[in-house]
Structure formats: C-alpha cells, structure tokens
C-alpha cells in the first residue's frame, strides 16, 4: 500500500516533463502540467509517509523479481528514509512552482522543456535512491540522478561557464558511481547478495569492511561535497539556474549524506577511527567551506560554499554518532545523529530559501557580483525580508531552526568532554571550538552577503533598476521561511520522526524508542526561545512607534565630507579583507594590479579573486600534466605499416617466450 503509493509517485514525477515535450515550444501548458504532476507526486509521497508514521507498525517493503543478473526490484521505507524523503518532495514541488516564475517556457523556449524533463527525472531518482533496497536499483537511480543533474547544470549549453562546471560535475559523478560500483561489489562479496542496508556479518575490522567504508565515504562524499571532494560544487551551483541550485544544494547533497549514514550503520560496532575520521573530516569541511564562502564575490558561489560548511556540520554529528556506537554511548548517538538529521532538514529549508532569493536578485539585476549591488532592499522589500530570515537561520541564530540542530551537535561534542574515565576521547570536544569559529565566520559571510547586496546605496545601474519578483517566486519563499521559524520554535514537531530514525540506525543501543525530549530540555528551551521571539517583536514594534513622532529623514552623515557617492561605500571585498588576509594560506588568492603609493598617483586598477584551491591549483593542473604525458605517446600511432607489423612481431616473440618458458 505505502510502497505502491511511493512507486506511483515516482512514476508521476519521472514522467512529469514528458507532456511538455509533446507540446510546441511556445505553449506554456506543458510547464503547468509538469508542476501539477510534481505536486501531485509530492502529496502522494507525503500521504505515504503520513500513513506509515500514523498506522504502520512494521517498516514497509516491496520486493519483485527483476530480469537482471541478481537484480531484484526491492524497495522499502524506514524512518531514515522518511527523514530524507520529506525534503525531496517538499523542495521538488516548491522549486517547480518557483520555476514557473523563474524559468518560464515563454522566455526559455530552447531549454525549458529539457529542464523540466530533467527536474522530474531528478526528483524520481532521488526518491528511488532513498527507498532502494537493492544495489543494482540503487546504482541505476544514483546514475540517473547524476545525469539529470548534469543536464540541469548545463541547461544553457552555449554558456561556457555552465558547460565547464557541468563537465567537472559529470566527471565527479562518474568517479562516485565507479566507487559505489566497487563498494557494492565488495558488499556482495561480504554478504553474497545485493540486498541493501542490513547489518553485515563480517567483523568491522576486516579489510573488506574497511574497503567498503572507504569506498562509501569516497563515493558518497563526492556527492555530498566533503572537502577536498567538493571541487565540482561551487561552479555547478553558481552556474545552474537558481531553483536548480536550490534543489541540488538543499536536497541533492543530502543524498550523499544519506549514503554515509546508511553505510556506517552496517556494522554492529564500527571501529572508533571511522567516527574520528568523520568528525575530523567534518570539522575540516565546515571550516574550509565557510572560509572559501566568506571570500567569494559571487553570491551564488558564496551560497554554494556555505552548503559545504553545513554538510561539514552534519558530518561532525554523524561522526560523533559513529564513535558513540563504537564505544557504546547512546547519548552521543542520540545527539550526534539527531542533530545531523535535523540539520539536514533545516538546511533543506533555509538553503533553498536563500537560493530562491538569490534567483530573484539575479533575475532583477542580471549580475552575480556582490560588488555591483547594494540598496535593493528598497526595491525588493519582500525578497530582502525573506533573505534576512534565511541568513539568520543559516548562521544558526536563535530563535530560528538552524540553532536547534547546531545546539544538539554542540551538546554531543561537549558530552565527549564529560565522558566517563577510561575513554580517552576528550579530544573530540575540540571540534566544538572549530564549529564556533565556523559559526562566527558564517556570520561574517552572511552579513557581507545580505548587507552588501540589499543595504546601503546601489553600486551600479543594475542594482538601481532592480524590481521585485512575482508572487509565484515569493510564495515558495514564504513557505520555507515559515518552516524555518516553526522548526526553530517547536522542534518537538519532528522529534518523533528523528527518534524513529535514530532507533532504526542503531537498533542495538535502543531497546525501546530513544527519547530526545527526555535527554535534553527541549521544551524548556523552546519556551525561552519563544520568549525571545516575543521580546524581539515587541521591541521592534516599540522602536517603530518612534518613527511618526519625532524623526527627521536626512542623508547619511558623511563625517564632514560634502559629496559622498555610492562608490565610496565599503565594498564586499574590503569587508572581509582582514579575514581573507588571515586565511590567505588556505585561500591562495590571485591578485593582479599594483597597489597605489605616494601622492597624486596615476589611475590604477587592482583586482583579487579567490579560485578554488583544490580544483584550480591542484586538480586541473594535474590533469593537464597527465594529458600532456599522454600526448607524448602519439608518435607510436603515426607510423608506416612496417612499424606496426614490427609491434605485432614483438608482441608475438615476447608472448612466445612466456609460453615456452
């Protein structure tokens, strides 16, 4: 019943773009049909989840024979699956609606239909990934996701930026698929079947287990964007259409996390170093991600890097849970995994919110450069307000949802400091200061993003002539912002689901369902946060009362200078200059132009850009080197026939020698 609903929903989603293909490029009927189908699919999916949560006792499953070697069409839905399925359905439909305003067929005749077809396929593939219980099925869904994503990123296939980042993504996705092929093959060696996500008999210390874990982290990490596997991410999210970026960043990355969660659940007691590795990886990812984010001058790249940071935070939580499982500390599992899963949900709320907002800005101004913007809050008040909520939420500021999940992860990490004697794991606590620094940097990054984009004076004509987006673009953002507030004030709404998921992840540690509420005073905190929210509203209302009574409106004080212009404002680059200087060892900025010296200097220009260190300084040069080396071999294949016959002779002789030997 439940699974049939899911399958039906998947089919609907997959086919949602097809009617559009059959219609002419001009008609906009196709896009409305597509949205309708996607939303229907989403509603059916939610229905399935709701039914499962409300009535079902056992996890739902469905297994049909399949005419591929050892393939079975086996799917199932458990609590973890639901946690990841919810954002997929939510963002798929909201993004589709947003797309009506952002990428209408009327203006994008060439690629509008392609985009919607791939959108549907991507949705369906993600749903399949979450419910798949057979390796072959999983791999297929995984690759369909990869390919659909590739076509979405390179929607504008005559734009070099889009095609290049699409190509890099395609390679990354293929590496990930190959790694996963290897992993599942090893899995089959271990279990003798392709059935997925059961606790394996082999001991977790065996070479086999290590291989599976490493390949899994590699394959899934490439998708999730763990540093230094994040190379494809910034370009892709920057160049894709904004609602696509929202979908990829809010939900797509979560698929990689889903994989890591599932893989790490496959051993009753994983070795401690696995968890340690994940925590260290997570700390590095979040710090690195936010350092690069803070430096970016392209607001979509900034958002992309901040996704890397958030994935890092999630990863810390998972790592903590793995360690807890290894040493038998249910509390760590509860807080680590709970925080991680909750953060996935949160990230799937505020990141799409921010990308939608970015899309509105891009649509209104036509530029992705923060330096060119400013002061558009006056012209786009709704977008500005919603973006403010999103920025505050992603910085983990109370009373919004980001705070709750980070709070849980912090608590888990602190618990490592008060660990019972004997376990020498206090060092894990040092991830907490790292997280704190990451949080402060995130605040800097988003103050820069919001302040420089929406506040102050317009720095260019683009900004000066911005216009507010239509209702179809704003409504989805309202929904998401509302979600941020609700989850921030009443996390209890999702606690039940999280607890089920945690119990599913490590059934051994929890005989009866674990209770986050019992462990942590969430209700009390919710009350306090509610009070805070009320106080804030009251206060702001009071301040607003001032206005009519006694306010003079005048120009900003120029510190005595008569004619300040908008170009005198502090720019985004200078805003983070101290930080970028402090981290130049990591950022490795590319500076050009001279710095001005002396009095009455000549006109001079200087610029600084922050290429991705791993990609532009390491990977691409390396690949070019390989290509050059391969080029050295060309002459071998540019000879007269006699030489070719010589190759044959040599091969013959050599092999004969081995034969007679």
């Amino acid at each position, binding site marked *: 019943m439940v699974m049939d609903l899911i399958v039906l929903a998947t089919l609907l989603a997959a086919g949602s773009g097809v009617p559009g293909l059959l219609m002419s490029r001009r008609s906009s009927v196709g896009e409305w049909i597509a949205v309708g189908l996607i939303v229907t699919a989403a509603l059916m999916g939610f229905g399935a989840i709701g039914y499962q949560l409300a009535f079902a006792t056992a996890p739902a499953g469905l297994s049909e024979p399949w005419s591929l070697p050892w393939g079975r069409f086996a799917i199932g839905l458990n609590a973890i699956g639901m946690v990841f399925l919810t954002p997929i359905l939510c963002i798929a439909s909201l993004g589709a609606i947003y797309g009506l305003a952002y990428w209408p067929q009327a203006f994008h005749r060439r690629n509008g239909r392609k985009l919607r077809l791939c959108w549907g396929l991507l949705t369906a593939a993600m749903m399949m990934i979450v419910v798949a219980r057979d390796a072959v099925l999983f791999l297929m869904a995984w690759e369909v996701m990869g390919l659909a994503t590739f076509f979405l990123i390179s929607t504008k296939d005559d734009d070099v930026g889009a095609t290049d980042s699409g190509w890099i993504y395609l390679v990354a996705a293929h590496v990930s698929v190959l790694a996963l092929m290897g992993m599942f093959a090893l899995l089959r060696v271990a279990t003798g079947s392709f059935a997925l996500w059961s606790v394996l008999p082999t001991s977790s210390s065996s070479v086999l287990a290590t291989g599976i874990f490493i390949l899994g982290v590699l394959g899934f990490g490439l998708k999730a964007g763990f540093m230094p596997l994040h190379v494809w991410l910034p370009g892709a999210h920057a160049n894709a259409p904004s609602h696509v970026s929202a979908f990829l960043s809010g939900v797509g990355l979560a698929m990689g996390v889903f994989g890591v969660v599932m893989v790490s659940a496959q051993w009753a007691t994983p070795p401690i170093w696995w968890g340690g590795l994940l925590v260290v990886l997570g700390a590095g990812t979040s710090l690195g991600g936010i350092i690069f984010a803070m430096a970016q001058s392209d607001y979509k790249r900034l958002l992309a890097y901040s996704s890397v940071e958030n994935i890092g935070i999630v990863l810390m939580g998972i790592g903590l849970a793995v360690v807890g499982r290894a040493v038998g500390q249910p509390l760590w599992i509860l807080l680590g995994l709970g925080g991680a899963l909750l953060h996935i949900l949160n990230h799937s709320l505020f990141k799409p919110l921010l990308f939608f907002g970015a899309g509105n800005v891009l649509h209104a101004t036509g530029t992705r450069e923060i330096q060119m913007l400013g002061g558009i809050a006056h012209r786009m008040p709704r977008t500005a307000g919603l973006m403010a909520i999103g920025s505050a939420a992603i910085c983990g500021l109370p009373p919004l949802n980001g705070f709750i999940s980070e709070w849980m992860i912090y608590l888990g990490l602190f618990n490592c400091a008060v660990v019972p004697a004997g376990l020498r794991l206090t060092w894990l606590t040092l991830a907490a200061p790292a997280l704190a620094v990451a949080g402060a940097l995130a605040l800097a990054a988003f103050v820069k993003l919001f302040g420089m984009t929406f506040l102050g004076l317009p720095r260019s004509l683009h900004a000066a002539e911005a216009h507010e987006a239509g209702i179809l673009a704003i409504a989805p953002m309202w929904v998401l912002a509302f979600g941020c507030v609700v989850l921030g004030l009443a996390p209890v709404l999702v606690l039940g689901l999280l607890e089920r998921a945690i119990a599913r992840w490590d059934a051994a540690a929890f005989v009866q369902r674990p209770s986050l509420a019992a462990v942590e005073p969430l209700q009390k905190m919710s009350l306090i946060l509610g009070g805070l929210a009320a106080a804030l509203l009251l206060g702001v209302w009071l301040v607003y009362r001032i206005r009519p009574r006694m306010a003079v409106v005048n120009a900003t004080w120029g510190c005595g200078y008569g004619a300040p212009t908008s170009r005198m404002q502090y720019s985004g680059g200078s805003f983070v200059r101290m930080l970028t200087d402090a981290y130049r060892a990591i950022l490795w900025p590319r500076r050009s132009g001279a710095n001005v010296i002396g009095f009455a200097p000549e006109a001079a220009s200087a610029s600084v850009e922050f290429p991705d260190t791993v990609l532009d300084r390491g990977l691409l040069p390396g690949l070019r080197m390989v290509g050059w080396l391969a080029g050295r071999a*060309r*002459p071998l294949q*540019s000879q*007269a026939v*006699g030489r070719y016959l010589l190759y044959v002779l040599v091969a013959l002789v050599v092999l004969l020698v081995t034969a*007679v030997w």
Partner: protein
Amino acid sequence: MTGTINSLLVVVLLVNLFMLGASRMRGLIHAAAAQGVILSFMPLLLAARLDWIAVVVASVTIGLKGLIIPRILHKALRDAKIKREVEPMIGFLPTMLLGALGTVLSLVLAAHLPVVGHPVSNLVIPVSLSTILTGFLLLTTRVKAITQVIGYLILENGIYIFGMLLLAAVPFLVELGILLDLFVGIFVVSIIIHHINQTFSSMDTRQLTALRE
C-alpha cells in the same frame, strides 16, 4: 626420402637468405616463385602413395605460387613506372645477418621444443620458423608495397612448410580454401597497390603516414 626433403628444405633456407640480400625487385619475385614451386612439390614426396587429391592440390599450388601470383606482381611492377630497386629501411647486410641469426635461433628453439608424433624430418620446424621470420623481416624492413607483399608470401610459405607435418589433418578442401584466400588476398592487395600508384605515383609506403594522431 628424408634426404630429399632435407635438401629441399636447405634450398628453401638459402632462398630465404638470398631474398634478404636481393637488391633487384625481379630477382625477389622470381625467388619467391621458385620457393613456392619447391614447396608445392613436397607433399607429393611425403604422401605414402600418389592419390589424385594430392596431385590436384600440388598442381593448383604450383600454378598459383609459380605462375599467377608472380604474374600479378610483375604486372604491378610494370605499370608502376618506377626504379626497380628494393629500398630497404636498414641495409641488406644487416637484414641478412638478422635473417641468419633468426635461422640459428629457430634451430635452437626447435631443438628444445618437444617432438610430437613421428615427423618426416627434424628440419621442418626450424626451416618453417626461419622462413616465417624472413617474411617478417621483409615486411618490416622494406618500404616498397610490392616487397611487403612478397614478404607476406614468404610468411605464407613458412606456414605451408609447417603444414607438411600434418597433411592428414588438413583436408584438401581446407588446403584449397587457404590457397583461394591467399589468391584473393594478393589480388585485392594488388588492386590497392595499383590505386596507391595512381594516387601517390610511388610505391613507397613511407608516404602512407597521413593518418596519424
């Protein structure tokens, strides 16, 4: 009996060396033809009693290797109005030495290989191997298209020699089929050579390196 075979085989060896040294195209063609004819007599000598099948096969072989194929080659040589020298990539002497070395090696190798059944002569295997090697040498070190065809012929001859050991195994149908293949092959190749002449007005395969990475 075995004596005659051995002597013929030795002659074949000498022909090989001669061809490696030959500088005139005609001589090369004649030598190849001669070798072919010599070889085609052998089955008759080996056969216990002359049955007509063997005779047919032998005569066809002679006709093909002794007459038709040389004809084709001569014709190709004639319409290619070019100088008749063999153009080696590496000199004649070195190739001869290589050939001699190859012969020695194949003798040594054959001596170490296990003997199966009751071969008529223990020279068959080494001679066939060295002949094959000769063919390869011609193929790889000579630049003219025709020379390479001749090299291919010699290669074929070497294999034919080995075929002596298993007359029973290779029924005449297969023999004929193999011959037919050889004929068609040479025929098609000669056509291509003709076109090469038309297009490049030369037979130098060194010019055929337009297709490169």
